[in-house]
């Protein structure tokens, strides 16, 4: 374990940024936090987490796949992938780190998504333990320890210092490059902090949210529950929950005609949208209730069924905070869990 005084944090950031693009949560004009590329003068946000999850780094909202150049009646297909530099994401919370596992299982199993894989291979994740979880946090429900975040390097912040522990080869290499600014230390402080956080977790209002009653094989039991009507009745059908969600991974592929070429790109899609997975025959989910149900059944039943019981929710609480009508996965789990 190595530590660094917070006084030197900007030197540390500068050092990281020498070899790779560094992204960290910075405060935006509206007071919220967002990952921004670090540059001299950037201020690290105090917020618990960013509004947008860090999934953008590996699975951006829009990504060009290829381009068809048209000239008269001829068409040429152009690969639009650019070489990618290494980058470091700093300050990723435990829940969001876990979300990468969820995404990996979608994008890195055969057939591997080469766009995702390329970005993933270039990214180094420095996670950060949560000292002050919010009332909307329920990562524990999914077995995530906010005091011991995974990632290439785990970090713990105190009033004066920041502690680092490398977990992977990539992490070790990066930490070694920072040896001039960090010093070796024992884990006393970190252990104390871990204990404190774990104790605090019992105070969280959502500590009792449980996955009991969900998981693979529950489709038949849950699919036709009458509660879906009530739960979905106020849903506006917007994409807020899916777009702030760190694990939602659905996308649409579209063509944009620039006049001189056609750009084929993919962009996030939302199962809440009426044209989601629309096919030539029409749409297979016709009402907002069906679309609403799809989202939660996917996170809590279908995904675990296909992924050894892993849920595709990490309890980050973003949807709780941002849904315009305050309907969210916790309310769904409480309502139909154990039915």
């Amino acid at each position: 374990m190595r530590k660094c005084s917070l006084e030197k944090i900007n030197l540390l950031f500068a050092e990281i940024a020498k070899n790779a693009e560094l992204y960290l949560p910075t405060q935006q004009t509206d007071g919220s936090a967002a990952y921004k590329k670090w540059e001299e003068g950037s201020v690290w946000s105090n917020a618990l987490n960013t509004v947008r999850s860090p999934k953008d780094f590996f699975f951006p909202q829009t990504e060009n796949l290829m381009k068809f150049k048209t000239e008269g009646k001829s068409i040429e297909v152009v690969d639009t992938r650019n070489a990618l530099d290494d980058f470091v994401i700093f300050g990723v919370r435990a829940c969001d780190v876990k979300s990468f596992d969820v995404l990996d299982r979608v994008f890195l199993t055969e057939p591997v998504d080469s766009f995702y894989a390329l970005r993933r291979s270039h990214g180094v994740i420095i996670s950060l333990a949560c000292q002050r979880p919010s009332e909307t946090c329920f990562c524990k429900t999914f077995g995530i320890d906010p005091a011991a975040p995974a990632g290439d390097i785990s970090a713990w912040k105190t009033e004066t210092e920041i502690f680092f522990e490398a977990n992977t080869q990539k992490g070790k290499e990066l930490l070694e490059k920072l040896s001039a600014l960090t010093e070796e230390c024992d884990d006393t402080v970190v252990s104390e902090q871990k204990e404190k956080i774990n104790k605090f977790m019992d105070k969280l209002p959502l500590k009792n949210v449980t996955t009991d009653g969900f998981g693979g094989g529950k489709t038949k039991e849950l699919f036709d529950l009458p509660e879906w009507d009530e739960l979905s009745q106020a849903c506006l059908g917007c994409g807020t929950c899916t777009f702030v969600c760190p694990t939602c991974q659905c996308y649409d592929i579209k063509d944009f005609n620039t006049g001189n070429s056609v750009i084929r790109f993919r962009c996030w899609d939302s199962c809440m949208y009426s044209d989601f997975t629309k096919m030539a025959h029409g749409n297979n989910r016709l009402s907002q209730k069906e679309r609403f149900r799809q989202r939660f059944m996917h996170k809590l039943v279908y995904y675990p069924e296909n992924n050894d019981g892993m849920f595709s929710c990490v309890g980050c609480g973003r949807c709780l905070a941002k849904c315009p009508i305050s309907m969210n996965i916790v309310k769904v789990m409480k309502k139909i869990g154990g039915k």
Partner: protein
Amino acid sequence: MQRVGVFVCWCGTNIAGTVDVVAVAEALKSEPGVVFSANYQYMCSQAGQDMIKEAIKEHKLTGIVVCSCSPRMHEATFRKTAAAAGLNPYMVEIANIREQCSWVHKDMLTGTEKAIILGKAAIAKVNLNAPLTPGESPVTKRALVIGGGIAGIQTALDIADAGFPVDIVEKKPTIGGKMAQLDKTFPTLDCAACILTPKMVDVAQHDKIRIFSYSEVTEVNGFVGNFDVTIKKNARYVKEDVCTGCGACVEKCPMKRIPNEFNLGMDNRPAIYIPFAQAVPKVATIDPNACNMLKNGKCGVCSKVCAAGAIDYTQKDEYINEKYGAIVVATGFNPISMDKFDEYAYNQSKDVITSLEFERLTNAAGPSAGKLLRPSDGKHPHTIVFVQCVGSRCESCAEKGKEYCSKICCMYTAKHAMLTRDKYPDTEVYVFYIDVRTPGKNFDEFYRRAVEEYGVKYVKGMVGKVVPEGDKLKVQASDLIANKQLHIDADLVVLAAAIEPDKSARPLATMLTASMDTNDFFTEAHPKLRPVESPTAGVFLSGACQGPKDIPETVSQAGAAASKVIGLLAKDKLTGNPCVANSNELMCNGCSSCANVCPYGAITYEDKEFRMPDRTTKVRRVAVVNPAVCQGCGACTVTCPSGAMDLKGFANLQIMAEVDAICK
């Protein structure tokens, strides 16, 4: 995908002088959809057109682009060419490379470059064109004239004389309108009744004209060529076809003290009445608000004295439905109320009267049998003050008057003043005016005669106040030319009240979806080029409902409206412009924005049942465009947020394709 043919015209050297036509034809060859591209010296010539026809057939073209002169020049020509070769004429697009390219750019390189881009835009558009067929609708060969004044009468006679049946709807018991109330007419001073009543008789006797008097239009549906109109015939409690108009009932009616509308309340009439001697139809009408029999069931005198047995106290309002091909609005005007003009003491003194009242006072058939006597004491007035522009040209007093010029007042006041001086030379006559406006044939001569021959005292200036004092009216006025205040002791003050559209016009406009201006005058389809047509197809305007007018103007406009109606009714079918709006009802919200901006009232709404995506059904309100009425301006398309409303021939996607092609 279309199979597009491109035809680049040289127009001799007009185009070829600054545009490399061969290069244009070559460049456009590789555009999407293009399967044929050629150039020729004169595309519009027979040989050029034959070339297009052959290419259409040989290359199975589904669309053509002609790069030539302005579409305003030869679009119609090339559409005919296409049609002759079996291609829908609306599959033709023109790239204007002459007026908007070769003629305005000097440099060959620039001209050629731009011509190629304009060609590309036209190709991009034609790729999205769809064959269009103009709609056809039958024409009901009958016209409706609303209003039976001189405007309505003239229009009806002209239409009927051309052989088409006409119905006149008049809300009063007789036709004749305002003109029937007038004494003499300017500038010829012939008697109004003498020239109007023969026309009224012509109307009554015309076998193609029906008169619905004492009636009003209550509902209008349909569109040009196919209006469906409901007429409410108010109960007059007299059988129209039985009454002989003998007048026995009028004489015997015991309820004699009802203010006589025809004489503007300056004398009385009985409860059963015939407005005036030459009324058409000449039948009696019972005033239900005055008749004791109808109100209390007591009396029945008229019924007893009627030899023909025409009285029917049980008569009910009758509703008549009729179909019309065209509707003429001739609802006329009224003087505005003088209630708000306290400064002229209209409501304080009986001797302050309006010009129309003056007409009745000097009319031989009027309340004083044509003698000019003061209403208050029946004495002959020695000093008369005429006040011009009472409520007209009131820029600062819009809340009580009108901002516009009422147009007829200058002339009738000159007439009144002249006639007064002629009959009663001992009378002093003053006319206070802002300006004297006499722009009509023999108008200014007429006015000058009033001043020069008859000694009417015209004073430029306004009357500030009229105060009744004893049997005099103290008139305070300013003379702007002499720059002094005047105090005149008048015996009679005559106000040239502004005129305004009849109150029935506004609800009628709503029924007809015809537009009105802020003063409630009907708007014409084009102020210069289509002055007697309303923007709503099939609705025509006659007389003062469109704006203040004197008699000759009204009659000429009436004739013009009639000729437009005749032109319409002479057709068996109406062929529409196929470039009309159409609403995609699956996307329409029924919000009414489109109807709000449609100048033609072409959009209506229907409740329709839809299968929703979730397999349920839902009844929704959706817009429906009547293609026979729509003129294709596109105002609705932009106001529609969902894009449900689009314009055929100029569709959103077509225009955006042009934009894209130009900008790439």
